[in-house]
């Protein structure tokens, strides 16, 4: 028996909800501003389960506990990374605090053969893909620029320049279609990136070529210090309409809705029906990065209001209400979290600096005589200190 089948259900507010496609059709004659933003929500902040005419989801208790575990461990990993930055072990950290539902929900909607193009904040998606969390920390410690093999987990390298990866995702998806595969591609980006030309171009290309790509925009309300109003005059999901594909806004703090909506968009891509824009409406609870100071530009009350919508608390409330998880589960998860924190801490501290000669590695796939020459000069220069070091003993 599934949990959902026993869940108490609120009456559908169907008049307030329509599917993205229907919304597109209905609002086509109006100005974008005139349509009320719709928010797909399947789990309220209080942990009440809702039904939606277009996005149904039916999860077992085990699956629900799995989503909860993913979010808790991701948050724990993230907190550890922030602490490691404060301790001087990392140069920088970009926290995902508050965005766990958006990332775990969308990440768990993916199949193994799907491909992910992340920003630099997709630690939860990386977790879903099976990327070892410690792999994400190398670039923040400064020992590499990423360095994992994207093809091991179909999880591309973190892209720092805003929005660039949406074009890579689109090109990759064009290749998937050429191969006749039924895989899908997902591109992550944020509300700030929505202003980038590359994002607009990726919408154009994916629409024109009907590429199997899902654009997953985490609108966390802030692009460093700039609120979403500085990026757009219309709700971001409505941008899709002008490019000729559906857009949908989902409660980004509702893991069930993020899972259902992303799954639906991925299926649409697999069926050859082209791209979808998903706007996950969420909130960046922490600073942009550890170098940022949000007290300079936003009010504490705003953060407090989003705390009440916390993605983890609402799923916990639901799990408890439904009896889908017992105290032993939560206790075991606490222990697992602490073990993860410890493992990450130890792994980072043990992460060696690269050999300086590695500067010259992998500049070119087929080699380059200039790089070879400079490597040899560098090695000779380094070696010239060997005698000095010897004398110093």
């Amino acid at each position, binding site marked *: 028996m599934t949990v959902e089948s026993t869940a108490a259900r609120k009456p559908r507010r169907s008049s307030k909800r329509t599917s993205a496609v229907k919304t597109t059709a209905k609002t086509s004659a109006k100005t974008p501003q005139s349509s009320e933003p719709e928010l797909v929500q399947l789990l309220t902040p209080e942990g009440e389960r809702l039904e939606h005419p277009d996005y149904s989801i039916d999860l077992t208790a085990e699956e629900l506990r799995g989503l909860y575990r993913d979010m808790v461990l991701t948050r724990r990993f993230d907190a550890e990374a922030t602490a490691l930055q404060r301790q001087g072990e990392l140069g920088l950290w970009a926290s995902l605090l508050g965005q766990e539902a958006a990332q775990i929900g969308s990440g768990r909607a993916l199949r193994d053969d799907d491909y992910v193009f992340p920003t630099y904040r997709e630690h939860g998606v990386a977790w879903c893909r099976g990327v070892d969390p410690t792999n994400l920390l190398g670039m923040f410690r400064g020992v*590499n*620029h*990423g*360095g*994992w*093999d*994207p*093809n091991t987990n179909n999880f*591309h*390298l973190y*892209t720092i*320049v805003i929005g*660039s990866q*949406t*074009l*890579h*995702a*689109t*090109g*990759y*998806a*064009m*290749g*998937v279609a*050429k*191969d006749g595969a039924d895989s899908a591609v997902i591109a992550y980006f944020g509300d700030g990136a929505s202003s980038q*030309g*590359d994002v607009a*171009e*990726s919408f*154009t*290309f994916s629409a*024109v070529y009907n590429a199997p790509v899902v654009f997953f925009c985490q609108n966390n309300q802030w692009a460093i210090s700039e609120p979403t109003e500085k990026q757009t005059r219309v709700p971001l999901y409505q941008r899709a309409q002008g490019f000729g594909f559906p857009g949908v806004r989902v409660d980004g703090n509702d893991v069930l809705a993020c899972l259902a909506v992303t799954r639906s968009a991925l299926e649409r891509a697999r069926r050859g029906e082209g791209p979808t824009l998903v706007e996950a409406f969420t909130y960046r609870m922490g600073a942009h990065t550890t170098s940022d100071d949000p007290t300079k530009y936003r009010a504490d009350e705003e953060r407090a209001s989003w705390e009440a919508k916390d993605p983890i608390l609402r799923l916990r409330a639901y799990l408890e209400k439904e009896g889908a998880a017992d105290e032993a589960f939560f206790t075991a998860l606490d222990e697992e979290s602490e073990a993860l924190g410890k493992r990450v801490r130890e792994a980072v501290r043990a992460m060696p600096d690269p050999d300086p000669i590695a500067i010259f*590695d*992998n*500049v*070119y*796939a*087929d080699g*380059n*005589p*200039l*790089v070879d020459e400079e490597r040899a000069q560098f090695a000779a220069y380094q070696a010239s200190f060997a005698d000095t070091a010897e004398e110093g003993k």
Partner: protein
Amino acid sequence: MAMEKMSIAKALNESLRKALDTDPKVLIMGEDVGKLGGVFRITDGLQKDFGEDRVIDTPLAESGIVGTAIGLALRGYRPVVEIQFDGFVFPAYDQIVTQLAKMHARALGKIKLPVVIRIPYGGGIGAVEHHSESPEALFAHVAGLKVVSPSNASDAYWMMQQAVQSDDPIIFFEPKRRYWDKGEVETDSIPGPLHKASLARTGTDLTLVAYGPMVKVCLEAAAAAQEEGKSIEVLDLRSMSPIDFDAIQTSVEKTGRLVVVHEAPVFYGSGAEIAARITERCFYHLEAPVLRVGGYHAPYPPARLEDEYLPGLDRVLDAVDRSLAY
């Protein structure tokens, strides 16, 4: 041995045709490359023979063209991208410099980016603004990219073959005002490595180094100088990154004098890099400082003035005379 006389444009077309024919992963992408065959007809007939799936007319968005080419390369394809004109590449400059050039290193070598970016470049065709520029130094400065330019039909054919086969991103500058110059193309055997310079004319008194459209000007200058009893060697660089410094060094050790010629502005141009390196390598062989002939530190001028801006026969000979006067 199959020898055929054809234009540079035809050689590029034949080379791309062969690449499409040989490797099903090769794709052609760009604005108007399909039915029209490109504004210079370099891809003429290719979409007809290989289909819209492999010869792809793209939206008019250069960053999008290069960005999606990167994605296709990550999927295992080998895109050959056309940027319609030199001055139109800059919307794609971020994707080229920030992503294409660095992604292999970012992945510690675990992924490769076999993307060729073809750019018709240079002046001399009486065009409007943005259609006559020579931005090669802006790419040669970037680690992770390789930059080449053929000067004749045979090189056009073979260098394109080699560029498509390269696992590194290649910026392939095509000398647009020479597209219709004809030459013998030997289609059976590869003449030499992609990044090696070739000796276009032997001489003993001075070395002229040039590439792309300026090789022809330098050969004409050498012929004119010969009438005055001066023996000029002309080295066709072919690759602006990496540069075949060994070949330049060998020549300068023989002649003792070097003049570098390119259409691009002299300031921070490839001539500056060559002058510095050759001065280091050949200090005791040099009879004169390395001189440069090229564009000025001004926007490319309106077409009616371009003959004054572009290095022509007289300006090259003037530099030759100045060098020989030391």
